[in-house]
């Protein structure tokens, strides 16, 4: 008995050992949640060297309403003593957002609090309770369309300089374009004697045989791609004929594999498991950098998945939020955005320093002609569409 107790005690004391060893392996460093705020408050140089307006002269190229600063400008000290918060989804994208918003805060003299995540349920809960702590949030396109006017404020465009915003991205009533993830036609350059040129080729197993991968997570974008493949004009995707989309996808069923995360799509590309995929351009770019012989089909229109900057109803710092958003969409800030995150800039004047390889996958530049989805349609019927998608993928 005593022996057993002793052995148990040793196993027990090893708990302390585990924690001690583990503790020793993690050197002290800034803690994840608040590191960004310290960074922003000390941010002496503005992102991309953004200019600080000394007067309220409108930007040269655009025509914002009188009294509105050109995009990317902010008046020094104009919000001194004020505060605002932004709720994002963490990771490298929020690091870049924190940098830009932090710079804005430094210029105008306000204090900035980054937070997150702004899940639809959380934003709605804040708005419903009237206790809104976020002034700007990252809203995915479908959530934005669903909550426009009930959760998110209608944007007063006269308070912003949107003249330089990319025309490729549709204006939303309740949000300003923040981020575009392009879904593209990627293919193995050694798999076919001649390169594919359109989405129709993706669905043509006779001419371009071999396994294809698509994303397992949701039907949006991919149904539109299927419709493009079946010959629907890119201008006539709203609303999408979902059943026709599934019929087109059915043609691939025998040669279709699913990936459920970006890294999986990369592995499939790298290991020659597939010859083509509907993949995020960023993943294809990484694979090309890793030495894989993959390329995009520029003439097959990429379909964008959009995120927007939105202001929740009941925000107590709406004026600061507008000024911050106006600053965020400036050319220099957006150039910094692309350099830091690899996502396309929303300002047409942005001049990021990019490598030739990075330019080759920049879908906002010709010959790419990106299209977007009908968010109102998807937002109105999301749960039922997800049931349909689950049924289709899991059979």
């Amino acid at each position: 008995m005593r022996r057993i107790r002793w052995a148990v005690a040793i196993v027990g004391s090893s708990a302390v050992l585990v924690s001690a060893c583990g503790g020793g392996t993690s050197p002290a460093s800034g803690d994840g949640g608040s590191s960004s705020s310290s960074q922003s408050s000390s941010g002496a140089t503005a992102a991309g060297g953004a200019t600080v307006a000394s007067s309220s002269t409108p930007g040269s190229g655009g025509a914002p309403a009188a009294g509105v600063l050109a995009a990317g400008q902010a008046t020094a000290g104009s919000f001194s003593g004020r505060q605002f918060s932004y709720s994002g989804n963490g990771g490298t994208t929020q690091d870049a957002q924190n940098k830009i918003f932090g710079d804005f805060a430094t210029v105008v003299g306000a204090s900035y609090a980054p937070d997150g995540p702004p899940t639809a349920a959380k934003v709605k809960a804040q708005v419903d309770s009237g206790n809104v702590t976020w002034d700007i949030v990252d809203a995915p396109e479908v959530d934005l369309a669903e909550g426009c006017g009930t959760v998110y404020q209608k944007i007063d465009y006269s308070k912003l300089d949107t003249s330089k915003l990319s025309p490729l991205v549709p204006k939303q009533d309740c949000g300003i374009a923040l981020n575009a993830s392009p879904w593209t036609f990627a293919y193995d350059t050694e798999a076919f004697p001649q390169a594919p040129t359109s989405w129709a080729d993706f669905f043509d197993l006779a001419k371009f045989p071999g396994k294809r991968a698509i994303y397992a997570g949701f039907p949006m974008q991919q149904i539109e791609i299927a419709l493009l493949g079946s010959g629907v004009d890119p201008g006539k995707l709203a609303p999408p004929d979902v059943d026709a989309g599934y019929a087109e996808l059915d043609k691939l069923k025998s040669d279709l594999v699913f990936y459920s995360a970006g890294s999986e799509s990369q592995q499939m590309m790298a290991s020659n498991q597939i010859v083509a995929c509907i993949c995020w351009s960023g993943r294809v770019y990484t694979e090309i950098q890793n030495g894989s012989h993959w390329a995009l089909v520029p003439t097959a229109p990429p379909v964008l998945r959009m995120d927007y900057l939105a202001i929740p109803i009941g925000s107590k710092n709406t004026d600061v939020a507008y000024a911050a958003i106006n600053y965020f969409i400036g050319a220099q800030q957006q150039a910094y955005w692309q350099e830091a995150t690899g996502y396309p800039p929303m300002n047409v004047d942005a001049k990021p320093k990019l490598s030739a390889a990075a330019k080759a996958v920049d879908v906002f530049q010709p010959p790419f002609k990106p299209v977007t989805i009908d968010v109102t349609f998807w937002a109105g019927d999301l749960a039922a569409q997800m049931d349909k998608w689950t049924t289709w993928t899991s059979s």
Partner: protein
Amino acid sequence: MATTQDVGADRRAGPPAPAAPRARRSRFDALLLIPALLLILGVVGYPFVVSVIDSFVKVEGRQHAYAWITANPVYLRIIGRTFLTSVVAVVLCVLLAYPYAYVMVLAGRRIRLVLTVAVLVPFWVSGLVRTFAWVILLQSGGPVDRLLPFLGRDGLLHTQTAVLVGLVQVLLPFMILPLYNSMQSIDRRLLQAAESLGARQTVAFFRVVVPLSAPGAGAGALLVFVTSLGIYVLAQILGSPATSMIGSVVYTQTSQLNNTGRAAALSLSMLAGAVVLIGAAYLLFRLVPGARRAG
């Protein structure tokens, strides 16, 4: 339990203790349970009740959750697949655990030590780390693919086989440990008696060891089954939509669509199915004559 009875007996036999403190003591002992019960009731019990209510009351997409499940047979199919996968995992675990535990019992000290460490190390190492190891091994062009190329053109990753291999490896210690425990307590003279009466090794094993260790196997099976039902991450990493288990659907309904009523209804339907299955297995087990004698 024996302890408490002994206490009572001792108390009665020993010098008379004052009555008042004894009553207070018993009440005090019950009070000791309160913090733990509050924690479990608050974090497990109350949320469970909320889930049950949500699953019946919440209307999402103009539909009650259970009506939605019946309208979409795919979800019942996925629940069925979850059960099937878990049952196969249990069977594989039983088949692999029996010889292992048996050798553990029979082996000399050194070998038993090695075998014990071999079970304990994976038991303690994060299941997630072991899942990740299978990603490396099973990926297309990976070691398994090269050693056994006939298994599949594109590697085994993201197939049903991969999910089962991962499940069995992660859950095997849950089967081996209780089995070893119950085999260890078998009186070895029974085995020797059987053998001395001329029974062959295998016969002795199946007629003596298997029935007598059945409770251990039952416990292991229960643990493996329940754990496997709740698994989400392993199936997500090693499987594909065609092998998806109910955990993935519950997670999508919660995190992507915020339909907590539907998520609750799905998980409760699975729980109800599990209770029925376990009950059926228990009855079946009692019907097997040998097992009843042993139990």
